[in-house]
């Protein structure tokens, strides 16, 4: 539809002229602010700044943004893999996330196009490398391992949350090994995903105590 000097349908006063500029963004799938390439011209009203895409421009923008999206995933994957290098060997990473040998290397060197899910997983692991160990645990088909840690003056930690956030009943029982050891057991049973068979108190109250399931 759009000729160079077509009347703007938004204001009926200005005219649409192709305008290429930087800083224009749009959401695409899970990326909320993907930049439209600065070289891409969009018919833009010279009075009200409305950007109106005709069928031809829409088709072109669709192609351009699909490419920008793929580039964004590749870039995010590459960065995540480089960040993960310090935390885990590449082959081990491949094994842990269940992809074929060499795939991570291909992603790192832009020889393969990552999808959204693998990119999301890599970004999360790179952002929080502790999750690597957690992922190893989660792959286990045995019951969940639960760790209870008592920290003097701070109460207890359970599953990464402080006692005030997660287990206030545990904090109240501080001071009694037996009592506070039992409270997590109750909580563990309540959560329904933990099987506890042994409680091993640490030599001092500041050391971790493990409930092994």
């Amino acid at each position, binding site marked *: 539809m759009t000729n160079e000097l077509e009347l703007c*349908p*938004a*204001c009926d006063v200005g005219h649409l002229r192709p305008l290429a500029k930087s800083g224009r963004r749009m*959401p695409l799938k*899970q990326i909320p602010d993907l930049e439209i390439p600065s070289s891409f011209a*969009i018919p833009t009203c010279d009075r009200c700044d409305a*950007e109106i*895409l005709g069928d031809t421009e829409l*088709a072109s923008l669709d192609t351009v943004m699909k490419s920008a999206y793929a580039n964004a995933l590749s870039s995010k994957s590459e960065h995540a893999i480089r960040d993960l290098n310090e935390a885990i060997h590449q082959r081990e990473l491949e094994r842990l996330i269940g992809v074929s040998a060499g795939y991570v290397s291909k992603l790192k060197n832009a020889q393969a196009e990552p999808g959204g899910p693998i990119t999301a997983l890599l970004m999360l692991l790179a952002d929080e490398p502790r999750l690597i160990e957690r992922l190893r645990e989660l792959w286990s088909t045995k019951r969940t391992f639960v760790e209870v840690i008592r920290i003097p003056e701070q109460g207890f930690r359970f599953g990464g949350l402080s006692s005030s956030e997660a287990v206030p009943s545990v904090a109240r029982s501080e001071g009694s090994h037996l009592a506070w050891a039992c409270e997590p057991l109750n909580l563990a049973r309540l959560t329904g995903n933990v099987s506890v068979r042994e409680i091993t108190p640490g030599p001092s109250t500041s050391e971790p105590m493990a409930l092994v399931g």
Partner: protein
Amino acid sequence: MQPHHPLDEVKRICEEADIELDRARCLNTLTAYIDLFKCKPFAREVVALLTLDDFSEVMNIGGLPYDLYGVRLPQEVKRRYGIEQLGNFYVKLRISRPGRLVFFISLHEMADDLWRRGGLLRSKDNN
């Protein structure tokens, strides 16, 4: 109150002629969910579903009258476009070139409840 732009004519243009969507205010709210090339067909389907009961008010934007509608989309339509998770839709449009072009300045999920001729439409239905 009646729409400024006769709904029958809006529907006819959407079916037989051209439509345009403002990029910043329409496309940017749709492309998180719908492929770019499906946005116009989606807009046409939404208009085909509009009734006078969906009409809310005429809004003056930049000296031009736009008709505002709130519409509940059938699940089948939402499923086809992969937007089952979205609520009801807010539509603001005008006939820009008589007989030739309908221009959408808004087409997105409703952020707030909306009073229409047919009664109150919640932004999201209780399921």
